[in-house]
């Protein structure tokens, strides 16, 4: 048994950062923006949140998340990333390539109604509506490390259920070997899908895939919430994958379709640059990205510049129990 859970506990308010800090930051950004617009330095919305983002509008009202009931995790060994940071520093190219773009541009994202289908090589295809995402399975909290391929990491309390439980419910055929996932394709709502410039040259919809045994590994989860509440859009509302031993880009967001297949499915980053991103994308300090080292990572916690931690990256992001899935495989070749 890998997880131990407390008795049911409805609605937690663990170390939720209060709204005021968030507002305060936005105000400062606004002031900076004002300063920026009058100056000679042209901003680039490219890879950063913060002072360069002076094109952002502040009109959008914040997306409303609702508290969930779930089994609370009693495993809390590491310092969690503050909620405010985990929900404002995101890679979600559908809303722009800057880390601050998703929180700026996704607040009016519609998650209800939603439809998630599980189909392909299964006995009983399933379709879940918005409410079903929260009521079909027992929700539990799991505190996982998230390691981005860009060499930063967070510790996030997710709420959700094992991917295995939904796959079992659909009854996979014996010919099913892989599971493919697809993000919503809705250019009206996702500016990155309307313009290749905003979306970083990615061919949408975003797709991901796992081997069936990886998908059935009990650590692999579908998350419908974080920090005790439903997911905000920038983190992949209403439902996303979380595979904690793989680089973050495997954990596909805002999923509409899960298809069981007999062939290895294509994945978005592999399509973009197959020499840099493989199908497996297991966290591995021994295999560098061609352009940067993966040996260490910067853990995002609270505090400014002077309290930043650089720590060693662990094989499989510290989830050694999955190593047996890859016995006999050359992980340099299957990166």
């Amino acid at each position, binding site marked *: 048994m890998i997880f131990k859970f407390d008795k049911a506990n409805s609605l937690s308010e663990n170390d939720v950062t209060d709204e005021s800090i968030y507002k305060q930051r936005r105000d*400062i950004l606004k002031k900076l923006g004002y300063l920026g617009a009058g100056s000679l330095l042209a901003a680039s919305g*490219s*890879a950063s949140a913060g*002072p360069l983002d002076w094109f952002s509008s502040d009109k959008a009202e914040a997306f409303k998340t609702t508290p969930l009931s779930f089994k609370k995790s009693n495993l809390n060994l590491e310092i969690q990333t503050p909620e405010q940071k985990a929900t404002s*520093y995101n890679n979600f190219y559908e809303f722009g*390539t800057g880390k601050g773009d998703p929180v700026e541009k996704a607040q009016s994202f519609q998650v209800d109604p939603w439809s998630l289908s599980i189909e392909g090589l299964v006995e009983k295809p399933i379709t879940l509506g918005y409410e079903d995402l929260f009521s079909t399975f027992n929700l539990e909290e799991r505190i996982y490390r998230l390691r981005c391929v860009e060499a*930063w990491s967070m510790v996030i309390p997710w709420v959700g259920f094992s991917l295995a439980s939904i796959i079992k419910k659909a009854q996979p055929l014996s010919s099913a070997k892989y599971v493919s996932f697809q993000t919503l394709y809705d250019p009206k709502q996702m500016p990155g899908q309307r313009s290749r410039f905003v979306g970083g040259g990615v061919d949408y919809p975003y797709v991901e895939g796992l081997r069936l045994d990886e998908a059935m590994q009990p650590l692999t989860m579908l998350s419908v919430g974080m920090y005790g509440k439903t997911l905000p859009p920038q983190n992949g509302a209403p439902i996303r994958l979380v595979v904690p031993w793989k680089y973050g880009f495997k954990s596909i967001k805002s999923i509409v379709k899960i298809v069981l297949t007999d062939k290895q499915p294509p994945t978005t980053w592999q399509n973009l640059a197959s*020499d840099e991103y493989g199908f497996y994308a297991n966290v591995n300090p021994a295999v560098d990205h061609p*352009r940067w080292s993966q040996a260490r990572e910067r853990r995002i916690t609270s505090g400014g510049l002077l309290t930043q931690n*650089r720590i060693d990256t662990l094989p499989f992001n510290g989830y050694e129990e999955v190593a047996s899935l890859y016995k006999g495989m050359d992980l340099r070749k299957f990166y």
Partner: protein
Amino acid sequence: MIFKKPIRIGPTKFKIFQWMMHIVILAWLILVFYQGLTDQLGGDPVQSLLDFTGIGALNLLVISLVISPIASYLKFGQFIQLRRPIGLYSAFYALSHLMVFIAFELQFEMGLVLSEIIDRPYITVGFTAFIILSILAITSINNIKKKMGRKWFTLHSLSYIAVILGGIHYLWLVKSAWYEPAIYIIVSLLLILLRRKKLQKCSNSACMFIYTVLLYMHTTWIYRQRAPL
């Protein structure tokens, strides 16, 4: 163009303009560092600072290079006076960029700093641009400039190499959004095209140097395209 009237601004107004420029460029840098120290720079303050100083250095460099063509087009002689301080600020932003990289990104693991500069083509290229900017900054001291005479102009045409290297550095570090860095590179090439007459006057040794740099960039590009480790 021949009929265009030269532009002149009153000396006081121009002074005020210059001061405003100094204040904006410096205050912005200080403010962003202050925000970084007090955890107001979003999720990853180190990344935000790296991006801010990197883009800042590149933008300032491009601005310093468009000043001459604009000034000569508008017959706005005073405008040229802004070229040197903006070029110097570009070097200063690049220095802060390197300091952020060493102090906060790699947290003074000096062995790693060295190996990153050597092993990662995009950092090798950025570092080369930084070395050029530093040399140009030092030689812009008036006494040195006078002593160097004509050679000074030859040396300072390296700023065009620096801006291209800065653009390539940017192009190679992005994961997929290559449009913005590509725009910088295209603008730099256009600037070189605009100034080609002046640049042709550079001595042979400068041409040799530029040729070597191009060759070296070409090889690193091939290296970048190699099969993964």
